[in-house]
């Protein structure tokens, strides 16, 4: 048991390695198929997973955030506005989509991280609503209710990301990047986050500088949401306020809770399964919300660990 691979897995975290592996394997899907349905579902999953990571990071510290759509909008609109100035370099845009929301999160974090529990939930919900208003009220910058359409396709190392396959491969890359960032953050600061989740006041009294880790988590969570926004805008080649509706935060929260909040695999499994299930509703996608509602109730009342947590418990119970 104390061999090198086992030690390495324990240090890096089995779930984290599995999550990264899943997104490396995901590159094979766009290469091996051209099915429109698969492309559409995979694209939504790749955006959804990244956005859900943003919720999950905050939930590691027992903070339920509704602010993800707001930061997604900042990331997405950064890319869309850069497109107006013919900035299409994918590396530059990726950096921008991460850094801009993270920068905005610094002063916002100073404001909202003073709040805990319920107040934090309510205020992040209000933040997402403010973002919608800001998008509608600044037509000069964001195109107002029309949004920004006709964004030029990005270029990666001189190649234009024009075909659906290339866009999807790039989305896989963004998801892999987001997974690596999330895994590194939550793995490296695992004990700090766990202490805050368990009992923040006790952690602080034991000398943990709580605000530092909360601020770091909030800023990185905002950056990761920005990457999701980039992925979404890159898929649609349009930035529109309706893509970042504050109520979509509920979806990402549902993915996290149903998938399981204890492990990084929870957001991955939750968003993949629920987005796949939503697509089964076909044109009646609006009814999927009811399904989410029922699933959340089942998880909260009967299977607290979510899908991943419950499977883990079942596996461990076996002799």
């Amino acid at each position: 048991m104390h061999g090198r691979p086992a030690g390495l897995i324990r240090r890096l975290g089995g779930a984290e390695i599995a999550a990264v592996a899943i997104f490396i394997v995901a590159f094979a899907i766009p290469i091996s198929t051209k099915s429109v349905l698969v492309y559409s579902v995979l694209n939504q999953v790749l955006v959804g997973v990244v956005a859900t990571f943003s919720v999950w990071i905050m939930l590691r510290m027992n903070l339920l955030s509704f602010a993800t759509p707001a930061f997604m909008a900042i990331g997405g609109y950064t890319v869309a506005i850069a497109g107006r100035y013919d900035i299409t370099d994918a590396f530059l845009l990726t950096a921008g989509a991460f850094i801009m929301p993270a920068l905005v999160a610094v002063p916002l974090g100073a404001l909202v991280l003073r709040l805990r529990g319920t107040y934090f939930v309510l205020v992040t919900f209000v933040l997402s609503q403010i973002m919608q208003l800001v998008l509608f009220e600044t037509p000069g910058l964001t195109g107002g209710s029309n949004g920004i359409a006709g964004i030029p396709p990005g270029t990666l190392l001189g190649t234009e990301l024009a075909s659906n396959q290339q866009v999807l491969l790039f989305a896989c890359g963004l998801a892999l990047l987001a997974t690596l960032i999330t895994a590194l953050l939550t793995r490296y600061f695992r004990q700090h986050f766990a202490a805050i989740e368990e009992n923040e006041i006790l952690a602080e009294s034991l000398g943990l500088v709580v605000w530092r880790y909360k601020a770091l988590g909030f800023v990185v969570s905002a950056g990761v949401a920005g990457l999701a926004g980039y992925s979404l805008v890159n898929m649609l080649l349009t930035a529109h306020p309706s893509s970042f509706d504050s109520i979509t935060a509920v979806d990402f929260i549902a993915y996290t809770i149903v998938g399981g909040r204890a492990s990084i695999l929870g957001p991955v499994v939750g968003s993949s399964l629920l987005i796949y299930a939503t697509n089964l509703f076909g044109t009646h996608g609006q009814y999927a919300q009811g399904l989410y509602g029922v699933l959340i109730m089942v998880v909260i009342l009967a299977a607290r660990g979510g899908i991943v947590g419950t499977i883990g418990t079942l596996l461990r119970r076996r002799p």
Partner: protein
Amino acid sequence: MPEFLEAAIIGVGLGAQYALLALGFTLIFGILGVVNFAHGGFYMLGGYVAYSCVSGLGLPYPLAVLVAVLATAALGWVFELLMIERLIDDHLATLMLTLALYLIISTGVLTVFGPISMEFTFPVGGAFRAGPIYVPRENLIVLAVCLAAIAALYLVLFRTDLGRALRALADDRAVGMALGLRPRLLFPAAFALATGLAGLTGALVTPILSLAPGVGDPVLATSFLTVILGGLGSLGGAALAAFIVGIVEAYTSVYFGGSAGALVLFVMVLLLLVFRPTGLLGRDVRGA
């Protein structure tokens, strides 16, 4: 000048509606420690129940409002007893449960009534005129009913044993229970009281505004703003903040138009959080 007075009357009218919603919301939080994400859902449900009673069963409107109150209160009672009660001390879990209920109510309404808005009109038309001032009569009736409901709620909470028991539990649950108060009876009662108020507001207001799936979202957002402004768990704060929100909304929409009112309110709330995170009349509340 008439414009100024009309805006004041509209503002007070909005304030009274928001007060009914925010009082229910803060009652649930103060007593049970639960953030009710389904509050907008109960508002919407109140509207739809009243609409069904009027257009489907042909009941007179006042009776339909009463049915809507009873139906939303009953749903609140059952939901609290069967679901919230089991996880009452887990803030995040109860929040998720109410969120789930909201998703289910929204989908249910969408399935039964479809996505288009209903033709639900207030039975009393016309307007009240006093010199140059012109106020729709329906707004005055709603204002009167809302104020009566607020007064009744005040009497229940501050002049009856039920109210004293509820406030005692809000103040300190452990001591209240040690003195023999029964949460298994009182918690569902508090929840039902609050959801009934949301249903009442929905039944009264949706004929004037609109009735469609999704009308609950802005209601939820306004309730949040109001209780943050007033201080979570504070009844007086919620009522005060509701009238501030209503008046600010009325004046900004008359003089600036568009969504200026919402932006002004958001800025107010953010400033308040910097200088006084507990809200206008709030104190430190559990878990907040």
